[in-house]
């Protein structure tokens, strides 16, 4: 269980996140949504211990994060930063196996390599295993780095725009995998997403941030509304529901608006 108590983040005199209170259950996928510059990335960085807290507390399974115990804190975390720009002469397999850094010996064991291969296979990436990172497209790099983070077997998963460079198929593949592993392994998973429909489709809860404050929190069907989207993004939108109750968002062009 991840608990945020009155979490406040400031950088250079500016308040990025203000008084956030949240309790997130394991085995659930939470999508962080909101306009650009509302503290989504800052929130993930703070949870990872990269951004000092101005106020408040973060606890994972009852253990508080403290500046002195960051190394231990991070052992429980799988963190995928937004930037996946890597121009490296290392094979995908070698990059993924680094997910097991803590246990690697000078000679790579068959066991470690097998684990890395399995992670790649699970994402249907095994054909990339022996190709160098610098020959990959942005989307391929993103998938390989996702495989790396899977290998860490975390309790808390933090993904910053994990699908930003992916085509439709791989977006679905990554999200399906994340969702299934979150349930199976009992992770607390947080992913920053910009695609509201993808978030609605996969997330158990939406964490809606606007101007550094929590605007809404709850299951997508309860949270998403045309009014919320217009208030957050200043874009007129229409939220409809599938026969099975799942919401989907359709943005409206100015010309389509009545009057």
């Amino acid at each position, binding site marked *: 269980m991840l608990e945020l108590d009155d979490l406040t983040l400031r950088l250079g005199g500016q308040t990025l996140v203000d008084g956030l209170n949240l309790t997130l259950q394991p085995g659930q996928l939470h999508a962080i949504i909101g306009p650009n510059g509302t503290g989504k990335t800052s929130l993930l960085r703070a949870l990872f211990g990269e951004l000092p807290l101005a106020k408040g507390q973060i606890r994972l399974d009852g253990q508080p994060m403290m500046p002195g115990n960051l190394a231990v804190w991070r052992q429980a975390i799988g*963190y995928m930063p937004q*930037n996946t720009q890597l121009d490296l002469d290392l094979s995908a397999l070698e990059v993924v196996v680094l997910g097991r850094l803590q246990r690697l010996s000078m000679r790579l064991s068959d066991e470690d390599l*097998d684990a890395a291969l399995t992670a790649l296979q699970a994402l249907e990436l095994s054909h990339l295993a022996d190709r160098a990172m610098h020959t990959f497209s942005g989307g391929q790099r993103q998938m390989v780095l996702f495989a790396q983070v899977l290998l860490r077997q975390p309790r808390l998963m933090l993904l910053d725009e994990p699908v930003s460079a992916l085509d439709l198929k791989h977006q679905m593949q990554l999200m399906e995998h994340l969702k299934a592993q979150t349930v199976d392994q009992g992770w607390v998973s947080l992913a920053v997403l910009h695609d509201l429909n993808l978030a609605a489709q996969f997330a158990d809860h939406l964490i809606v941030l606007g101007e550094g404050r929590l605007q809404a929190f709850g299951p997508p069907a309860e949270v998403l509304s045309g009014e919320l989207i217009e208030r957050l993004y200043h874009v007129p939108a229409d939220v409809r529901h599938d026969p099975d109750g799942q919401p989907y968002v359709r943005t409206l062009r100015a010309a389509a608006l009545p009057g």
Partner: protein
Amino acid sequence: MNGSATVLAVSGAEMLERQRKREGRRWRFLSVFAGLIFCSLTLDVATGPSLLGLREVLATLLSPASADAMTRAIVLDMRLPIALMALVVGAALGLGGVQMQTLLDNPLASPYTLGLAAAAGFGAALALVSGGFGLSPLLAIPAGAFAFCLLAAGLLFGLALLRHVGSQTIILAGIALLFLFQSLLSLVQFLSSPELNQQIVFWLFGSLMRTTWPMLWITLAVTVVCGVLLHRDAWKLTCLRLGEARARSLGVNVERLRLKTLALVALMTATAISFVGIIGFIGLVAPHIARMLVGEDQRFLIPLSALCGALMLSTASVVSKSIVPGALFPIGIVTALIGVPFFIWLVLSQRGRARA
């Protein structure tokens, strides 16, 4: 991402096999370089004012007792320490360069470009001008060079210790240090007599000829210890190449790794530079050549950078004695004169291959 069914069918066992093959190929590069180094060392000992045959040199090296006293003196007492020093200093510069490039995530980083060599040069000049602070010049000049090299490294450390100082800032500070110490060196030269000036210039050229056995042992010990300590962090350093945030997420204490590596590099390069003077270029280029051959896997990149640096300086030493028979070209000039065209050719041919 359109893996067709045929490529997808590659089995896990096959991929494992390919990974092992890749590692095997990297091992082969290490042994090829070790072999080349042995050849270059033999040639280095064989070249010099008094002509010795290759066979004679090899025989003396392998079983000293069988050679006559004269040959033994030339080979073992005069030439061998110099030839070995070329290897050790080259290795130290190669190691220093590769770790600075890793640490600062910048292909231009090297002990030279970050001002360490310039600081050493200024320290040596100061020791010369001040009459050696009462010490013998043999001791005072390396001591001065060493002290100022560490001072420059210390300034860079201080920066690295500060929170929120990125590698770009450290590089800029290094380049600023380079200019600062070059100006200070020029000032010392401007104020000193022509005779002293000539000695300073000669030191700045870099020379292996001053090498004695004790100097060699000190440099060797420092380089080996630092090199082994660096290699123990090979995996962490590889992670660092994925970016600092990602390295942290994999469990690397980036600040501690950066400080430790910088300390080892500073100690190693300061020792090497203080004995032989300024030899630029190797610290910059040897890591690039090693990286082209074995990639970013630091388990192999670290030793190959060292071997590549050693081979480059050893070859330069042979060439510096062969350009004008009987005369000696300053080795610092030779490394850049041969190295630069070779390096440009290498970079251009690599680009061509990448496009093809």
